[in-house]
Structure formats: structure tokens, C-alpha cells
């Protein structure tokens, strides 16, 4: 096709006239930026963007919040990313637990949680370790540091998840996947190459306006060519080999386990838990936590929203009883939750 007049990424998107195309942005930060930048409006009507399950807050089951509140009620100081503070558990959030007297510290980094534990010897401190491959190394560094310093008052409450088996579970949900740039900055691109060989197409995307629009342009253009493909459209950050030191660190401290994804159910071997050698920093074991089963609001359709099976506005609670100010489901809490993005950015309004 050389010699053809060059188009900008936005022009390529606007000019797409092929068959209907479903593109799933797996990553919640992509969802957030796509809404924030109004990128959907650059797409022709037959290209649909589906928001996937890549928001750690949204896929964290209700029972995890209940576990955190159980710890707080047993005198443990909870350290957490701000994202989790307002997520509803079965009967309350960390914000409501804090209002009732629980100690809940918002931190920027798990390493700050270790620093807090160091400075508060008399308190037991647990860090809520959520997140995917991008975030796990930070939690592992924190746990290693606590062990190295001999801190006996720091532990992780883990709900970490990994992407490979989630991709397998999602493979029929879209025609092209927009892969999460920062997950693959850690794990590299081999998995995406393998998926392309199995017929699953994808583009690895960055997060700036240029990067997102370009990745989408690559996706529609390549999809039009008909062959399964993989393109790393974020090479300034993602190397094919990823960050091997980070992967080794994860494997040193953690091992795969079956885990529940809110909305997707249990995906085998898609979670991470601390190995027995690190039981001393495992909050569940340190504090003898019982098994806690969470109960989500039965009317909440976060699950289907996360699978791309329904739009947020199809949920009976959306905007009526479930709003960013008073969220019922996790998808309404997180800045990158589909429901929150849909509500905040007006859904069909614009």
C-alpha cells in the first residue's frame, strides 16, 4: 500500500468502513483515559469499544473488603491505596469503618506502608495488596523489606491477580484486545505473540492521547487485513522481555492460586498468594482470619458489565441508588470502573 496518501491516526479511525469490530480495552486505566479524552467519538459506529475487567478494584470480590474490615475491627491498622477506601463490602466500606473508629491509612506506595509499620511499632499493620502484575512487584518489595528489617508488625492481605488466564477466559468477548501497557512492561510480550498465533488479535497500547489513538488506528487497520496480529504500540515502555527482575521477585514470594474475579467467577490459577516461606507476612495467617464469604447486592450487574455483556445503563441500579457518591457496585467506585466512567462522563449524553 505504499504510495497511498498518509493519514493521521484519527483519520484512519474515521475512515474505517469494514465490518463491525469489537475492541476490548482490557485495562481500566485505558477505560478512564478513553472517557477522559472523549476518544469514543473518534470511532465510526461499527467500531465498538468494550471495557474489560482490568480494574483491580472492580474485580476484587466483596469478601475481600469484608476481610479488610474484619482486620480493622480486630485492631489492625489498614494501609491501602486510595482506590479501595469507598468500595462497598457486604455491609460497609473502609470509609465507614474509619468513621466508626478503625485506623485506615491511605498510602501512595506499599513501601510507605512498611515505613508506617516501622514508625508505629505498637500497631499491627496490614497492606491491602490488590492489583495485577504491574502492582504486585511493589507489594513484594514491601514484604521483602519488612522481612529483611525483621519487622513483626507488617503483613499483606492479598487479592492479586494475573492476566494470562483471564485473557483465555475473555478470548471470545472481542475481535481485538487493547492490551494493558504496564502489565506487559513487567511480563513482556511473549504471551501476546502466542495469543496471536492462536488467532487472538491484540495491540499493546500506551496511555497518552497520541498513544491510545494510534493503537486504535493500528487495530482497525490490521483488523481490516484479516490475519490475526499482535503489535506492540508502546515500545518506549514495553520491551519484549519485560522486566525480568520483577517477574523473578513475584515468583520468589508468591505462587499462583485459583481466585474469584467479581463478575467472571473463579478463574483457575489467575491469582497470587504468598508462599509458605512468607507466611509471616501473610495477614490471613498472621491474624488467624476465618473464611469470610462476601455477599454482593443481588441487583448489581457489575459482573455482566465487566464481561462486556451489558452496558452500565442496563443495570437497574445505575444512577438510581448507585452513583459515584453512593456506590453499590465496585464498578461505580473506581475512577476506571466502567459504571463510574459511564456515569461521570455522561454515558449516552454526549
Amino acid at each position, binding site marked *: 500500500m505504499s504510495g497511498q496518501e498518509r493519514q493521521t491516526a484519527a483519520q*484512519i479511525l474515521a475512515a474505517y468502513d469494514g465490518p463491525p469490530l469489537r475492541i476490548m480495552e482490557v485495562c481500566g*486505566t485505558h477505560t478512564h483515559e478513553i472517557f477522559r479524552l472523549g476518544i469514543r467519538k473518534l470511532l465510526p459506529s461499527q467500531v465498538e469499544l468494550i471495557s474489560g475487567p482490568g480494574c483491580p478494584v472492580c474485580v476484587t470480590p466483596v469478601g475481600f473488603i469484608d476481610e479488610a474490615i474484619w482486620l480493622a475491627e480486630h485492631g489492625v491498622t489498614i494501609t491501602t491505596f486510595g482506590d479501595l477506601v469507598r468500595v462497598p463490602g457486604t455491609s460497609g466500606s473502609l470509609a465507614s469503618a474509619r468513621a466508626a473508629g478503625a485506623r485506615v491509612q491511605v498510602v*501512595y*506506595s506499599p513501601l510507605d506502608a512498611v515505613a508506617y509499620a516501622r514508625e508505629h511499632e505498637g500497631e499491627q499493620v496490614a497492606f491491602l495488596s490488590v492489583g495485577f502484575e504491574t502492582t504486585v512487584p*511493589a507489594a513484594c518489595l514491601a514484604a521483602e523489606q519488612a522481612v529483611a528489617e525483621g519487622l513483626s508488625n507488617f503483613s499483606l492481605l492479598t487479592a492479586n491477580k494475573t492476566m494470562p488466564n483471564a485473557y483465555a477466559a475473555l478470548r471470545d468477548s472481542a475481535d481485538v484486545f487493547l492490551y494493558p501497557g504496564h502489565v506487559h512492561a513487567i511480563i513482556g510480550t511473549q504471551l501476546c505473540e502466542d495469543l496471536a498465533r492462536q488467532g487472538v488479535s491484540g495491540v499493546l497500547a500506551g496511555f497518552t492521547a*497520541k498513544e491510545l489513538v494510534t493503537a486504535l488506528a493500528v487495530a482497525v487497520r490490521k483488523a481490516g487485513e484479516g490475519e490475526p496480529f499482535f503489535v506492540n504500540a508502546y515500545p518506549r515502555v514495553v520491551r519484549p522481555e519485560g*522486566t525480568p527482575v520483577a517477574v523473578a521477585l513475584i515468583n520468589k514470594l508468591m505462587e499462583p492460586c485459583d481466585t474469584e474475579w467479581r463478575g467472571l467467577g473463579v478463574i483457575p490459577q489467575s491469582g497470587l498468594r504468598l508462599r509458605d516461606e512468607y507466611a509471616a507476612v501473610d495477614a490471613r495467617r498472621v491474624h488467624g482470619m476465618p473464611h469470610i464469604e462476601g455477599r454482593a447486592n443481588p441487583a448489581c450487574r457489575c459482573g455482566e458489565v465487566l464481561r462486556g455483556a451489558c452496558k452500565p445503563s442496563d443495570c437497574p441500579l445505575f444512577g438510581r441508588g448507585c452513583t459515584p457518591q453512593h456506590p453499590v457496585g465496585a464498578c461505580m467506585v473506581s475512577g476506571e470502573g466502567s459504571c463510574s466512567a459511564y456515569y461521570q462522563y455522561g454515558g449516552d449524553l454526549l
Partner: protein
Amino acid sequence: MCVGLSAKVVRIQDGTAIVDASGARRDVSVALLDEVEPGDYVMVHAGIAIAKITDEDEHETDELLEALYA
């Protein structure tokens, strides 16, 4: 999934770097990366540098578009 911050390394000491993003500075761990030097750009997530990067997206996106016509 993971908010990343592109920031410039200003100083390094014992596996910790001071990074600067438009004048906002913070300690971040560079334990995951080899050979980071002052002046390098890194992608920071949750207080950890997860990758050494180049700081501008323009060149790269231009090349990607160019490749579509190859």
C-alpha cells in the same frame, strides 16, 4: 489498571531514586531496574520504577503509523 507516571531520575542512592515530574519530586524504588542513572526517564507505578523509558510519544506513534503503509 495501573496509573503510570513518567518521571525523570534526579538522584540515586541505595536502590532509591528521587524522580521529578514537572517539579513534583518523590523517592521511588529502582530495585527492579538495572543501570538507572540521573537523567534517565522511568515509568513509576505505586512508588516503584517499573521500566526505563523514553519520555516522548511523538516519534514512536509516527513510526507506528508509518509502518502501516510499509
